[in-house]
């Protein structure tokens, strides 16, 4: 009880001392919180997005076969479907029809696709992602979608269904069409597809299957599920790398600011410590007082930064990062993020921010506090 009362009194004294330099210390807590907020926001955002992508991409086809012509992707013949099916272990082979449509009305790119059997809309109808409706401003029930390929051309499609924003990360710019409509609209002849997707019964056999398929179809490019996963892993690593690079600069700037504030004891502070010692404070008390100062500032700023970062990312849709996602795109996914908190990352952030600051506050004080009060006050 006595120890608690003593510590409380030390905290009171520390806060009263901090209040004497209100502006400077408020600015310090503000900047500290801002640094933590930016780093924690980037961390929450990246890990939530990675989790979202990892889960969704578990459903991607095991193997995608593209035809390469003149060094870039061309249409693939439907004969390849039978050739692929003939390889043992390959199942559910289907030709995919998909491509891009640039909407000159709003300047947006749509991904147009023909879905598999059951999900295919009837002729004259389309299923659209929420981004398409947003871009076109089709916010009333039953609004038709007009698409134009060239001047004087206009095709009408009725909207059969809309994907909601829960799946926006995957479907924001999707436009699902009937196969006959797709071939007619984009002048794609019968018997060719954009690429071929296949499932493999045993994932361990994928490499062997790709090997066999390469021998049968040497002109084609094979993209496996692992390739796709690797691409996204790289994408997120790259992005996190950029964020860490920016974060490191913020940390460095803060480190200079904090080191200046914490380590270089002003003459006034040294005199204060000298007086405290002269009136009977122990070196331990002075250090405990400074520990309170460092702890209150850094833990307060850490808590404030983290709480604000969580609210920013998971409650307000990471509004600060939206411009990065949008780029020049007219359609950008407006999607919710499932809260994912990586405890190890939080601990790292804590160790990188709170501990160095607390240490930077205490070390110079210890030097002054252990000296003779008379010498310090002079």
């Amino acid at each position, binding site marked *: 009880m006595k120890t608690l009362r003593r510590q409380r009194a030390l905290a009171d004294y520390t806060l009263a001392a901090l209040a004497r330099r209100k502006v400077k210390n408020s600015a310090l807590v503000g900047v500290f919180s801002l640094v933590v907020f930016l780093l924690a926001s980037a961390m929450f955002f990246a890990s939530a997005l990675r989790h979202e992508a990892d889960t969704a991409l*578990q459903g*991607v086809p095991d193997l995608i076969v593209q035809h390469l012509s003149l*060094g870039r992707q061309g249409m693939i013949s439907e004969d390849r479907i039978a050739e692929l099916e003939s390889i043992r272990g390959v199942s559910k082979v289907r030709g995919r029809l998909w491509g891009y449509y640039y909407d000159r009305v709003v300047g947006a790119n749509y991904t147009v696709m023909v879905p598999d059997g059951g999900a295919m809309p009837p002729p004259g109808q389309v299923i659209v992602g929420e981004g398409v409706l947003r871009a076109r401003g089709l916010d009333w029930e039953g609004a038709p979608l007009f698409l134009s390929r060239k001047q004087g051309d206009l095709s009408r499609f009725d909207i059969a269904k809309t994907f909601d924003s829960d799946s926006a990360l995957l479907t924001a710019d999707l436009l699902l069409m009937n196969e006959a409509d797709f071939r007619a609209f984009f002048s794609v002849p019968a018997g060719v597809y954009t690429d071929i997707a296949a499932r493999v019964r045993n994932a361990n056999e994928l490499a062997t299957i790709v090997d066999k398929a390469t021998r049968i179809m040497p002109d084609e490019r094979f993209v496996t599920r692992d390739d796709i996963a690797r691409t996204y892993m790289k*994408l997120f690593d790259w992005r996190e790398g*950029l964020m860490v690079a920016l974060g490191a600069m913020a940390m460095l700037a803060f480190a200079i600011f904090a080191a200046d504030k914490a380590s270089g004891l002003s003459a006034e502070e040294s005199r204060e410590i000298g007086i405290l010692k002269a009136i009977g404070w122990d070196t331990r008390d002075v250090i405990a007082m400074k520990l309170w100062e460092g702890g209150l500032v850094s833990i307060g700023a850490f808590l404030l930064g983290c709480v604000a970062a969580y609210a920013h990312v998971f409650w307000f849709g990471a509004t600060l990062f939206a411009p990065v996602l949008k780029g020049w*795109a007219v359609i950008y996914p407006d999607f919710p993020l499932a809260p994912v908190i990586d405890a190890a990352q939080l601990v790292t952030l804590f160790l990188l921010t709170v501990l160095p600051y607390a240490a930077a506050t205490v070390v110079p004080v210890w030097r002054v506090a252990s000296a003779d009060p008379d010498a310090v006050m002079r």
Partner: protein
Amino acid sequence: MTQPRPYRRPSTPVFTALGLLLALAVAQGGHALATAPQQAARLAANRQIVHDLGLSDLALFTEARYTRHPALADHAAPFQDAPGSFEHFPSGSFVPPAGPWGTARLGFDAQEVTQ
């Protein structure tokens, strides 16, 4: 004669504020736990959409072909749009090239070009 102001301990409001922040942090943890089943169901539905439609990529950046479908982007031909080429669209700087690129290297001096 004015009454002296009663002494208010400066730590009281600060500790209260810290306590509130801590409570908010705990509430956020509770929020994450409480919404977890609902979010798991949404993610499972998304996985099903990917499976049913045979999607290969995320609609993160829709401004260019190679940022909309980085997994299926061309990377065999030189000097065409690809992640890692001279950047035109802002989002291209966030999408690294898919690779692996093989042994060839894109370079500018005579030694590199002839490699």
